[in-house]
């Protein structure tokens, strides 16, 4: 296959954990469609940390500007940590003792990122329990890093916003894409739910139908009460392109 730029449409669907007035999601997502290669990322800020939504946002925005490899992630992490530190410093300064203590502890988040190259290859990197799915025709071509819905624990690997904290090793994988493939990047609750039910259902989700499905699944207990986020990327066709 000659080098070709994937033409991708994407949807970012998210329903916060508490579906009410106080709704604040600590998940974040970002997609970079231009210039090639296309990159997408989702991150899930850990509930027990503070300023976690900010950290998740810093991670996804930073990751779509980096090569999707463990080495590039590790090299960029100190800059992301500095960005988070500066953003939080002013807010924590005059805050009560517990906000200062939480800011000093730092925030934690999982991160999952995908990159589609012009050569028909893709690569991904993950820290934690986000789920990547590649759907082809009417089947699940890839479910990574796990296809077992019971593998999701409450203690995933995490990226820390403070340099003093240990960093979990990022895991990489690669594959090949072709036109009409659909990729899903889901945070943990949605990933486990899709594995338990049917990942193919996500292809038809819109903001409204996703929200309805999330609320119904939470009510019946098949989806954990957690922020629910999925990025759906559909490769519509390819166009011949010059080298980026």
């Amino acid at each position, binding site marked *: 296959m000659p080098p070709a730029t994937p033409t991708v449409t994407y949807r970012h669907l998210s329903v916060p954990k508490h579906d009410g007035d106080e709704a604040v999601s600590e998940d974040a997502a970002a997609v970079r469609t231009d210039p090639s290669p296309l990159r997408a990322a989702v991150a899930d800020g850990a509930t027990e940390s503070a300023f976690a939504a900010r950290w998740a946002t810093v991670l996804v925005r930073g990751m779509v500007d980096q090569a999707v490899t463990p080495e590039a992630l590790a090299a960029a992490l100190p800059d992301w940590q500095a960005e988070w530190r500066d953003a939080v410093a002013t807010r924590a300064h005059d805050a009560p*003792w517990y906000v200062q203590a939480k800011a*000093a502890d730092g925030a934690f988040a999982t991160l999952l990122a995908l990159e589609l190259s012009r050569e028909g290859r893709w690569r991904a990197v993950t820290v934690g329990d986000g789920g990547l799915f590649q759907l082809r025709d009417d089947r699940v071509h890839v479910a990574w890093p796990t296809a077992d819905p019971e593998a999701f624990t409450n203690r995933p690997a995490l990226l820390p916003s403070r340099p003093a904290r240990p960093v979990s090793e990022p895991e990489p994988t690669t594959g090949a894409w072709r036109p009409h493939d659909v990729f899903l990047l889901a945070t943990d609750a949605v990933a486990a739910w899709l594995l338990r039910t049917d990942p193919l259902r996500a292809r038809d989700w819109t903001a409204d139908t996703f929200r309805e499905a999330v609320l119904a699944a939470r009510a019946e207990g098949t989806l954990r009460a957690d922020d629910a986020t999925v990025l759906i990327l559909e490769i519509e066709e390819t166009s011949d392109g010059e080298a980026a």
Partner: protein
Amino acid sequence: MPYSAEISREHPTAFLFLLDQSASMQDAFGGAEQTGDAAPSKARVLADTVNDLLQNLVLRCAKEEGVRDYFHVGVIGYGERVQRLIEPADGQGAGTGLVPISHLADRPRRMEERVQEVSDGEGGTTEQRVKRPIWFDPQAKNGTPMCQALDLAAQSVRRWIDEHPRSFPPVVVNVTDGEATDGDPLRYAQQLREFATDDGEVLLFNVHLSESEATPVELPSSSDELPTDAEYAETLFQMTSRLPFSMRSAAEQEGYSVTLDTRGFVFNADPSALVTFLEIGTRPSNLR
């Protein structure tokens, strides 16, 4: 399945600590003098440990916008008298003595500042000033009115359960260094453990602080594991609830081997066993 209720602001859980403040708490932990330590009293170690624990419970609920009321917390001291050591703010937790944790967070008795060494991320350390909240100070006087403390605890949790019938049930942790001086605590313990939410009966855990150098007996599954010369060890064992699933997991992560019969009991605890147990016993399930 019991003991599986998700803990949320709508359905919080409660922790109630019963702290022995009898005269013998003035003594150091067993073994401390022999090792030549300028040993702090059991009362001092217990007050420091519980202040630290309350701080950690606050931090587990703290977000940038404030403290979320996943937990309600109470502390009852028993010695010279039986009294609630944390006073609820107006209208908050009145009657139950169990205070929403955000109120606890905003009303320490005082703040102390200490300097601690933290990693600088480059292999070295740097000094950092940290503020430490203090909610109560050590006391040690008179006898051990454990039965009265258990009775007051029962009144607290009964009222709290009326208001929170679907919650993960209250966890009551009793820390003592000896025998009750006001009756048979087993009967009061059984009464306390009969109260239940839809999710399970009240959990009562016991930590006995050491008087001797003997090795702590941590999380026993059978009374056969206890020393035979201390009758009240058997009584405390019988008073104690089995660990629910989430706390068995927490115990396993701390390196203990557990069974379905493992009780939330430590006999002859040294300070480190006390801290470890309090960490396990306050892990009811995950916060949502």
